[in-house]
């Protein structure tokens, strides 16, 4: 690990000042320290933000405001989250391990970086780690890689679970800049597609820090988080789906679906939600939804299986959510 200067911040604005002058914020550190050991991340200064007053879940605007420093464990254990936002509790519990979730925070989890093998191996080309060096995953081992929204520069996936549920719920990220001004960004727009800047995972600008996540008023309905992975615990998603769906008189009254493991960001396609809304739930409809979702899918060899896997997982989730028997 490269040497760095360490400072503990006790106020949000002083932390933001340090971040603006180049310090990296550290909270749980479970991803950042791992990357620093491998010298993939090489910050010259760390500002420890754990003492900042951002560790509470509070009622706000009919929903909840989750402070950026609320740990994944505390968020999933909160009775309001378990009762009113079960898809979020399930998604968090589906990620990592209890030890990691006890340290990992809400803000840090949103900023976690891809687990692409080539990003992690400093001897390999990677446009995300070293812009312009190429993409080792294209033509290489790309089993875990993206099928939607990628390009020749980067086919990495966003690895998280929590953000997938936040997308389905329509949550927002609260961000503060060094001047103390706050802006809000829908979680659906927080993470980026690679475009011509695959090194940039999300829309945070230099000096900005996540201060919280806002959950809208409870949506009710049926909430499901299904995660398909290589082993049944402590593995990243090959495909995951967060679904928030309600039925009225036998028809789908509302549907909000988000997908993990298949793109550079948690994937949300409003066309799919619109297609389902107002319709009678049938397998034919679910196939149409999968057709639409996957109409621009692009595969890279070892990850071809993700297209049928996504289709089947989507159909299984929709059957469960609507009560349609297979």
């Amino acid at each position, binding site marked *: 690990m490269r040497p760095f200067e*360490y400072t503990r911040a006790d106020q949000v604005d002083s932390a933001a000042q340090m971040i603006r002058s180049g310090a990296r914020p550290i909270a749980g550190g479970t991803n950042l320290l791992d990357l620093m050991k491998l010298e993939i991340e090489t910050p010259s200064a760390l500002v420890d933000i754990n003492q900042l007053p951002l560790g509470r879940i509070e009622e706000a605007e009919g929903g909840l405001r989750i402070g950026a420093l609320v740990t994944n464990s505390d968020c999933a254990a909160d009775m309001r989250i378990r009762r009113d936002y079960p898809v979020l*509790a399930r998604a968090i519990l589906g990620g990592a391990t209890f030890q*990691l979730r006890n340290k990992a925070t809400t803000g840090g989890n949103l900023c976690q970086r891809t687990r692409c093998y080539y990003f992690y191996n400093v001897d390999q080309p990677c446009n995300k780690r070293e812009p312009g060096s190429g993409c080792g995953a294209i033509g290489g081992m790309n089993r875990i890689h993206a099928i939607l929204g990628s390009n020749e520069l980067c086919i990495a996936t966003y690895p998280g679970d929590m953000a997938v549920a936040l997308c389905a719920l329509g949550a927002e990220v609260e961000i503060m800049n060094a001047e103390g001004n706050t802006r809000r960004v829908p979680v659906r727009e927080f993470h980026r597609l690679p475009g011509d800047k695959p090194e940039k995972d999300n829309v945070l600008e230099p000096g900005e820090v996540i201060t919280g996540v806002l959950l809208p008023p409870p949506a009710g309905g049926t909430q499901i988080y299904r995660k398909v992975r290589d082993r049944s615990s*402590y593995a990243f998603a090959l495909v995951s789906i967060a679904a928030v769906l309600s039925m009225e008189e036998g028809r789908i009254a509302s549907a909000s679906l988000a997908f993990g493991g298949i793109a550079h960001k948690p994937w949300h396609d409003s066309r799919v939600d619109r297609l389902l809304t107002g319709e009678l739930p049938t397998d034919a409809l679910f196939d149409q939804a999968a057709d639409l979702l996957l109409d621009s899918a692009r595969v890279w060899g070892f990850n071809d299986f993700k297209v049928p896997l996504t289709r089947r997982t989507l159909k299984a989730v929709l059957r469960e959510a609507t009560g349609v028997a297979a």
Partner: protein
Amino acid sequence: MKLSINGEQRAFEGDTRTSLLDFLRRDCGLTGTKKGCDHGQCGACTVLINGVRINSCLTLAVMHDGDEITTIEGLGTMDQMHPLQAAFVSHDGYQCGYCTPGQICSAKAMLDELAGGWASFVSSDLEGEVRLTREEVAERMSGNICRCGAYPNIVDAILEVAESSK
């Protein structure tokens, strides 16, 4: 900077890069906590911070001003074993033993989490009381890997302690 380790005050003044794990093993001589992968994947370094289980390889010593750390050395002694230690012995919950301190620290905190009503990914009801089945133990202990494959006996040991502490 001061922190408490197994009830004793210790000062940390080392390189900021020092992980809590390296501080415990190298500077405090507490070698019960093991270094396996050093990347948060194996759980051999699991210790308790203020009663909460974490991977000590993925946190910096310098970040723990005022915290209370408990390692395997703080849970029990040769003469007075922690009930989990005794259960691991009687159920033969190990072969090589390298993962065992992490398994036991993890299990200790896991039972506390359960008492606090925490659900897991395999809990059918997120809000109700959890019955500690073998499947629940496996899910809750998935952050501790045993390459000897002593899992059936580890689960037996943990279930026995969970039953007896009801």
